[in-house]
């Protein structure tokens, strides 16, 4: 892995190897916190920062950590990063910190982060590791926010409720009401709604991929057909 392909890292993190839609890692926070857009965004940012910093730290120390003890070391690195983020959130975004509750400390156990530390950062230089953390974190965060927005719209009938928890007092009237209160589909914000929503997102992703493959295959067959009997297509 001497030459790192940044384009490949971007495609992998955001789409082809998306941690939430393809690897299906870190399901617990993904399903539990995606009930409103702002909760999802808060957790997405916290996870993004964690994975970038932990990837960077693991990459720096990768030559000094013995293989036998690497996992405990990585876990300690991640845990320290999460502790710092938790304290920062407690100080500056207190109501969001209260809303996310146990799921901030639980970022430590998000297997996506240790998977990137073990699978990528421990074998690559600092810059690629930071970039990989950014892309994987963004891929996870995007799914989290999309799922959060979809569940909030269907379940609460609103968008950006409690935005002031993240953006301060200026965001107090950002809430957009899309559905009347008595017609919201409460199932969406309950746990089964999270599973159904994630399932639909995965299905949409697979559908788009399948479509792309089919188109490629058709194009290839057409090219071959044109090469074999040029008169027919002309």
């Amino acid at each position, binding site marked *: 892995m001497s030459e790192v392909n940044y384009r490949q890292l971007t495609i992998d993190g955001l789409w082809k190897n998306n941690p939430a839609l393809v690897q299906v890692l870190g399901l617990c926070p993904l399903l539990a916190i995606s009930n409103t857009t702002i909760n999802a965004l808060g957790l997405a940012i916290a996870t993004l920062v964690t994975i970038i910093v932990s990837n960077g730290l693991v990459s720096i120390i990768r030559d000094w950590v013995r293989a036998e003890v690497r996992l405990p070391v990585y876990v300690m690195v991640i845990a320290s990063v999460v502790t710092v983020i938790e304290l920062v959130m407690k100080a500056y975004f207190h109501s969001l910190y209260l809303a996310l509750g146990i799921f901030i400390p639980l970022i430590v156990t998000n297997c996506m982060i240790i998977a990137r530390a073990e699978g990528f950062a421990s074998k690559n230089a600092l810059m690629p590791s930071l970039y990989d953390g950014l892309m994987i974190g963004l891929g996870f965060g995007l799914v989290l926010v999309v799922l959060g927005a979809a569940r909030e719209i269907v379940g609460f009938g609103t968008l950006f409720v409690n935005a002031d928890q993240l953006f301060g007092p200026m965001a107090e009237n950002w809430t957009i009401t899309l559905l009347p209160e*008595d017609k919201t*589909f*409460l*199932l969406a914000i*309950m746990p089964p709604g999270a599973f159904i929503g994630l399932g639909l997102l995965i299905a949409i992703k697979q559908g788009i991929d399948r479509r792309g493959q089919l188109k490629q295959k058709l194009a290839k067959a057409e090219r071959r057909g044109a090469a074999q009997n040029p008169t027919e297509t002309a």
Partner: protein
Amino acid sequence: MKFPVQTSPHVEANQDVARVMDQVIIALLPGTLVAIWFMGWGVLFNVGLAVLTALVVEAVMLWLRARPIRPALNDHSAIVLAWILALCLPNLAPWWLSVVGSLMAVMVAKQLYGGIGFNLFNPAMVGYVILLVSFPEMMTRWGVGIAPYADQLTLTQTAAWMFAGQLPAGMMIDGLTKATPLDAVRTELAVNGHIGSVTASIFDPSVSWNLWLNLAFLAGGIWLLITRTIRWHIPVATIAGVVITSGFLWLIDPSRFADPGFHLLAGAVIFGAFFVATDPVTSSTTPVGRLVFGFGVGMFAVLIRAFGNYPDGVAFAILLMNMAVPLIDYYTQPRAFGHKKRG
């Protein structure tokens, strides 16, 4: 002379899915008619909308899954599913409630699991429970009474209410709806600490619509038994489960727990025992397993009624026991001829 040699089976059962489903539809008719008599035209709208939605959704899902559409629509299973679901819905609910319920039942609970024969959970009950947890206020809009009671809406009034939300002048939705007996018991228990005399009126044929409705469903259930569409195990075990569990609680404290007769006649026990729990796909398939399954449904229904958050527990009990079916079937396999009993 040539004798053609045929392989077995030489005698074919005169039974297929459509025939079974048609028997269930026939059996649902008396209950549906009594429900329309006591609750008005809303029941008819619910059934019609749910059946229509189910057929459309079934066709669309099969088309998306690239499966043959015509045979699946002709087996009438979607009609039965939607009909059973519609009979669980309140008669003064808005039109979209039965549409959403039917959509979720067919799309999520039936077709996403692979269509008829592959669903883990009873689709009608999944649809009902989704509606119950998602639209709690809409699901309480029961307007019932001994017919023809004064407030019953006419056909056009019902249509105006269900589709446009307009009631005739001077009428309020809160005035039209009434607490069901199971609701009344809960309220009484919460307010006075004992169930009082609420349960007694259910046995009086001049005021109790529940009595007539359940008798109609019982008649339908007996028709299913006579035509051998269902076996006796599940209904009998369910009713036994309800009677034994509620009897046990009632003997402990008759002021807080309703008697077994009330539990049988209020709510969905008879309907659930004969029409829902007997679903051949999601219920147990061995004779002993059917007894265990039915008893579990009855027991959990009473326990959820007595200690749960919702007035009726039959739907939840059926879904719970659906989950246990693979386990029950595994432990109750009958001994095959020539094999020793497993130790």
